[in-house]
């Protein structure tokens, strides 16, 4: 069972087709759903009904609620078998995001992170240097301001400098970059820790992007045309996203685009975006499922997935090969994703994390678009109040 947009689902279909092409004993039925929420709903309903899929692909931000409830069969015993997949072949950061202590619960299919996609033609036309590793937050805001333009003079902004979703998963790396922390305890979080000066400063800088700096589309403009579409049609200079959007961006013909690491407050940081294949405890065909995993996560399967542009391979050998770093396929600076893996941090591991993110995202979005601008201190207090009981419930799971 997998979730994703059309390009993502196409990638999974190719992997399944590749598996079925090299063997005839195991048939795979791919169950496709639209998004993370639907995946959770379908999976929980299937688990409750006693007929779950053998495997599902899920972000580490969501899988914790299933792991904590014993719905998963750890993949460590399969990994310990001689031959086949080897743990040290994978990047350690995504592996750690799906491990319970020393036991590997699920196996990562990708190791993406948050980056900045930029319209190289707009930068050149404005006489700006392309963003590069080590660029600062103020550099990004300055470039975004220079690139936010009312071209036809009708009083409406035609080109915005930056597009970023007002969501915790976008804010998190900047809190870390400023020297702050999201939660009080990384391994056993009990509440948010955004009240520190560095964290609050990062939150305020993020909130100021819309109302104070005016470099991102308004609420109505983003609702009318989403930021991904704006980047594709050339009316957005920079887009903060993960590797997920690359298949869509590869369809761009009118301008050159590339990718850069996130700007820095005090230290380089980014947030891990990783999905893993998990085996359900009630799987009817665990051995066949493992056979599929050996292909999908092995060199051949990961190369197929990488060729679609959708994934940053979690297997080092494939990530550093031309299957991913193909010089003929945009973005030309895909090495940025591999450099990011070293500094990518995961959000906390707690069973109620999806609920915490949902609660925070609503308040964050409201503050981001608040007319007149919002105060980080007030937002942080509200976030703490609304999430404290959810943390408490999660720590009891």
């Amino acid at each position, binding site marked *: 069972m997998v979730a994703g947009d059309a390009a993502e689902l196409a990638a999974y279909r190719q992997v399944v087709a590749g598996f079925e092409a090299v063997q005839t004993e195991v048939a795979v039925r791919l169950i496709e759903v639209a998004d993370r929420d639907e995946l959770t709903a379908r999976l*929980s309903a299937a688990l409750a009904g006693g007929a779950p899929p053998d495997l599902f692909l899920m972000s580490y931000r969501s899988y914790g609620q299933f792991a904590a409830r014993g719905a998963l069969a750890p993949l460590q015993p399969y990994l310990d078998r001689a031959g086949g997949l080897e743990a040290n072949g994978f990047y350690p950061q995504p592996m750690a995001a799906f491990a319970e202590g020393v036991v590997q619960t699920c196996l990562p299919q990708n190791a993406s992170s948050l980056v900045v996609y930029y319209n190289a033609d707009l930068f050149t036309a404005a006489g700006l240097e392309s963003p590069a590793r080590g660029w600062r937050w103020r550099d990004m805001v300055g470039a975004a301001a220079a690139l936010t333009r009312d071209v036809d003079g009708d009083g409406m902004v035609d080109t915005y400098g930056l597009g970023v979703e007002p969501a915790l998963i976008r804010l998190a790396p900047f809190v870390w970059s400023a020297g702050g922390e999201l939660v009080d305890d990384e391994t056993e979080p009990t509440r948010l820790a955004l009240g520190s000066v560095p964290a609050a400063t990062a939150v305020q800088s993020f909130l100021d992007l819309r109302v104070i700096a005016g470099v991102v589309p308004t609420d109505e403009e983003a609702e009318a045309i989403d930021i991904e579409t704006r980047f594709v049609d050339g009316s957005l200079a920079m887009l903060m996203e993960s590797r997920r959007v690359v298949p869509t961006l590869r369809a761009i013909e009118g301008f050159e685009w590339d990718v850069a690491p996130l700007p820095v407050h005090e230290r380089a940081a980014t947030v891990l975006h990783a999905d893993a294949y998990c085996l359900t405890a009630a799987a009817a065909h665990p051995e066949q499922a493992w056979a599929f995993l050996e292909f999908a996560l092995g060199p051949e399967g990961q190369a197929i997935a990488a060729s679609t542009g959708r994934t940053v391979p979690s297997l080092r050998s494939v990530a550093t090969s031309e299957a991913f770093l193909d010089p003929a396929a945009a973005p030309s600076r895909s090495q940025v994703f591999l450099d990011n893996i070293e500094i990518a941090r995961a959000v906390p591991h707690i069973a109620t994390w999806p*609920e915490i993110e949902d609660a925070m995202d*609503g*308040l964050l979005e409201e503050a981001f678009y608040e007319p007149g601008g919002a105060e980080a201190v007030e937002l942080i207090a509200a976030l703490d109040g609304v999430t404290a009981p959810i943390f408490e419930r999660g720590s009891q799971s």
Partner: protein
Amino acid sequence: MTAPFLVGVALLVAGPALGTAVLATFDWDLIGAPRFVGLGNARDLLEDQVFRRALANSLSFVAVAVPARLVVASGLAMLLHRPARGAGVARGAALVPSVMPDAAYAVLWLWLLNPLFGPVNLVLGAAGLPTPAWLTQPGPSRWAVVIMSLFVIGDGFLLALAARRAVPAGLHELAAGQGATPWAAFRRVTLPIMAPALLLMVCRDTVASFQATFVPALLVTDGGPPPYATTYLPLYIYRQAFEYLRYGKAAAATLVVLAITAAAVWLQFRAVDGLRRGGLLARVLD
């Protein structure tokens, strides 16, 4: 003769309702072992700000949408009950939104209500009227969900149409012969005869309206704009159960919907009874 019906009701209504009541007393994710919490889920609901917001949203939706849908359905029935040129097409058009798949209907409204490029705001703007931020401001978003519901009145329209056609033409001729104005004829002849059908529509629509917000809230407004402007009880229950795996709490919220629906229908019957005792509906109902 009623045995199959009773078996169906027992299996499909009473059984699940009883199961929901039992589930509401447990903390259960349907994966691990259930834990009995008694009224713990009910207390949890009372303390949950999102639940309170969803409850208020649902009640306000029902209070506005049910009368509005009644007026639209019965108004269309009045206009289209006579055989006339184009009336058949118009009657068919009134039914079309009701037979559209919910998801397709929702996507259509996403386009219609697009804040900058949607036809609704383009027309309003061209007419010099205010252009509400349908999907980004709490008030307009709630109105958007009500407006979406006003076009899905096919079954109510059919019921009202049948009721209007059941009014004997001779009564109107008699009223006209006695010098009654069209408004007087409607108020003293048409409306009293249609009243039982309209009351049935109100009761049925009240029940349906507590559930009718789910698809628009999920697909068009996503429960927002924040904080929870269009999170109605069905969406709240769905998220608690299927996204957060809190089936016990979702069951408790479902019981609240059931209780409110039953109370609303009971109040309507009481109101009808009061009208009957007062003689206002005596000519029709007795």
